[in-house]
């Protein structure tokens, strides 16, 4: 899907290079500050996870009590890292695919700073004991209008770029990203207005909150991750998308199924009975869009097995897409009303599933995108193959531990909870081994990301390699996985005397 409609390769390279240059500062800003929030979130994650099995760990201080550290951790992960990584990818992909330079880098950068300020205030608000007590919406309520306003200032330009793009093909990536751009403000505004401004029945509030959580995962992070993977797989492997109709099926099934999901978390609570059932049915059926998109992307990427072995971008995003299949399977297996839902409803599997979607799927695809984008916008190559490999393998160990929590913890912990003849302490203690798994997962993720942070910081300081050969994971320099376009776009531009 790269350059079939563009007549002149040199002009094309020039255009791409100028797009990259126009977006260098905002994209690097979102990636580096997102990575910084990821670091904060991982540290808070280790602290909170350790407290579940070792309550004496950092005990007794108000700021570090479990009930504050955990929400700070998950909110930093979602709004600090997740959204900022998504912004970086959205603005870059939309500009590239719509073939438009970014003319509003200053505004995007300003809005990005405001977003970061709001996230900082929110995390400090939670830790200082001013959280709202609504999962994933714990930031003090003054932050949400700020977040929403800066969101619009960041992505509205991408929408305009799409509007004024040269006539022609609309890429699959663009469907997903446009959809995420439309859905997120709708979900965010609905949940915040109905919970913070016009509170209705307290139980419906809890239902809306559960729907909001599910909406962020399935209607924002999933489409952004899929849009990115649909870009990287054909781009790096140099092959067209395997099946266009499968892509359509995957996309439209997501749009039809995902908005109904979420309220299965309230099964058995006194809300209208159809709500948890619809939520469970939709969550179970999420396997369909996940499997369609994953099959399509994997078929595309594995056309070129060398590329999968060599390219860090492809390897990370393929691991992410495989995690998406596991995530879809977890959604299917763990939410069956009448059998598994009652076991997993109030178990640690919920957290496992969140990590599976936010880290194993979404973050992996984002890492893939970062390894692809950063050399293009900084015009430097990644320094070390070894740092990338370390990042990859330790993250894989981390997500395997996460998958254990997501898939097995719920069933076992739930069975213990349902054994009403035994004392409650029996069920409480059953959770401990899985809590250890969660801590181990975070430790691996921290360790793996130390390599990533170091590497990204060096690239940010423009200390990357000046080379026309991309950093690959296999030492042979024989063929480039980036296809016929040449090694790196900016080299092309330099050679064509861009300035």
């Amino acid at each position: 899907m790269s350059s079939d409609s563009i007549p002149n390769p040199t002009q094309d390279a020039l255009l791409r290079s100028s797009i990259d240059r126009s977006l260098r500062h905002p994209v690097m800003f979102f990636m580096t500050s997102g990575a910084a929030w990821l670091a904060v979130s991982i540290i808070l994650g280790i602290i909170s996870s350790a407290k579940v099995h070792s309550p004496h760990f950092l005990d007794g201080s108000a700021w570090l009590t479990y009930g504050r550290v955990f929400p700070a951790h998950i909110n930093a992960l979602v709004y600090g890292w997740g959204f900022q990584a998504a912004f970086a990818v959205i603005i870059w992909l939309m500009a590239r695919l719509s073939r438009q330079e970014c003319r509003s880098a200053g505004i995007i950068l300003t809005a990005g700073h405001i977003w970061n300020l709001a996230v900082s205030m929110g995390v400090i608000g939670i830790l200082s004991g001013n959280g709202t007590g609504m999962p994933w919406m714990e930031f003090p309520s003054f932050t949400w209008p700020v977040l929403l306003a800066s969101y619009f200032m960041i992505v509205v330009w991408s929408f305009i770029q799409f509007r004024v793009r040269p006539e022609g093909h609309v890429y699959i990536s663009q469907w997903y990203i446009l959809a995420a751009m439309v859905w997120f403000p709708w979900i965010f505004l609905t949940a915040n207005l109905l919970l913070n401004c016009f509170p209705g029945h307290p139980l419906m509030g809890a239902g809306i909150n559960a729907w909001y959580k599910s909406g962020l995962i399935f209607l924002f992070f999933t489409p952004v991750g899929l849009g990115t993977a649909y870009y990287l797989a054909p781009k790096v492997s140099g092959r067209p998308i395997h099946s266009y109709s499968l892509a359509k099926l995957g996309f439209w099934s997501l749009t039809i199924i995902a908005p109904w999901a979420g309220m299965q978390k309230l099964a058995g609570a006194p809300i209208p009975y159809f709500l948890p059932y619809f939520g469970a049915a939709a969550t179970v059926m999420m396997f369909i869009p996940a499997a369609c998109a994953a099959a399509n992307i994997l078929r595309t990427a594995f056309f070129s097995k060398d590329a999968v072995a060599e390219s860090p971008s492809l390897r990370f995003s393929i691991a992410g897409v495989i995690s998406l299949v596991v995530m879809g399977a977890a959604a299917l297996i763990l939410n069956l009303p009448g059998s598994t839902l009652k076991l997993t409803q109030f178990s640690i599997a919920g957290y496992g599933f969140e990590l599976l979607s936010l880290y194993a799927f979404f973050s992996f695809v984002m890492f893939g995108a970062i390894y692809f984008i950063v050399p293009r916008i900084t015009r430097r190559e990644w320094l070390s193959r070894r740092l990338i490999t370390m990042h990859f393998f330790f993250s894989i160990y981390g997500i395997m531990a996460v998958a254990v929590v997501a898939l097995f913890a719920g069933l076992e912990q739930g069975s213990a909870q349902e054994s009403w003849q035994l004392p409650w302490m029996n069920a409480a203690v059953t959770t401990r081994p899985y809590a250890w798994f969660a801590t181990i997962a975070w430790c691996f993720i921290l360790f793996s990301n130390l390599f990533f942070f170091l590497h990204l910081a060096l690239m940010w300081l423009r200390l990357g390699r000046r080379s026309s050969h991309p950093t690959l994971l296999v030492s042979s320099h024989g063929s480039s996985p980036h296809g016929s376009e040449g090694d790196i776009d900016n080299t092309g531009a330099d050679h064509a005397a861009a300035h």
Partner: protein
Amino acid sequence: MSLRTFILGLSASFGIAWLAVIVVPYFKMRDMAPIQLSEEADGKTGIFYPKRAGRVADGALVYAENGCYLCHTQVIRPTYAGNDLYRADWAGLKEDADRGDTRRETNAFDFTYEKFAQIGVTRLGPDLSNIGRRVESLYAPKADPAKWLYAHLYNPRYRPELRASACPSYRFLFVEQTIKGSRSLDALPFGGTETTELVPTSEAKALISYLLSLKKDQPVPAALNFSPAKKDG
């Protein structure tokens, strides 16, 4: 497909779900009809008004700010959705001196005076729907239930049967103060020195008052009573 059709498709597929699971149920539940009591079934007329006493709004805020909802749920699911009702003490009392078996599932009136129903995320700790009832009738039947909860909040592993608890200590909700004259009525039975004592802060008092208000086993009108055979009045 034009952008217009595309956005329309997105809005329709999302909007239908949004109306059906968010907007309509939100308005329906906001204006929930009060339950009329009937002379023959309930023995009195008028409307059902759930009883609740204590610093509910204050305490719910402390509950939310300190993340109690992360480990404790507040919902007793009907038997089709879980075994919560069978536990001897979660859903009420199995053998109450006056009322017999008071256990029942949670109903929509149980969250009166709260802004957000803390259904909860994970059951790392026990369900708290009836914690007030449990402490008063089972854990500290002859003592001051508030003092039992203060001690538990300060050190959840204080009692031998709770040694394995993973609940965090909320020491930061207590202060050490000099004893002036007699000891404070709320002072913890441990901690402090000859001249000082540990007393709960206003936040701890609000939280405990809220926890003691959690007695979701009160009698319900016949229209809400899903197990009338129990004759629990």
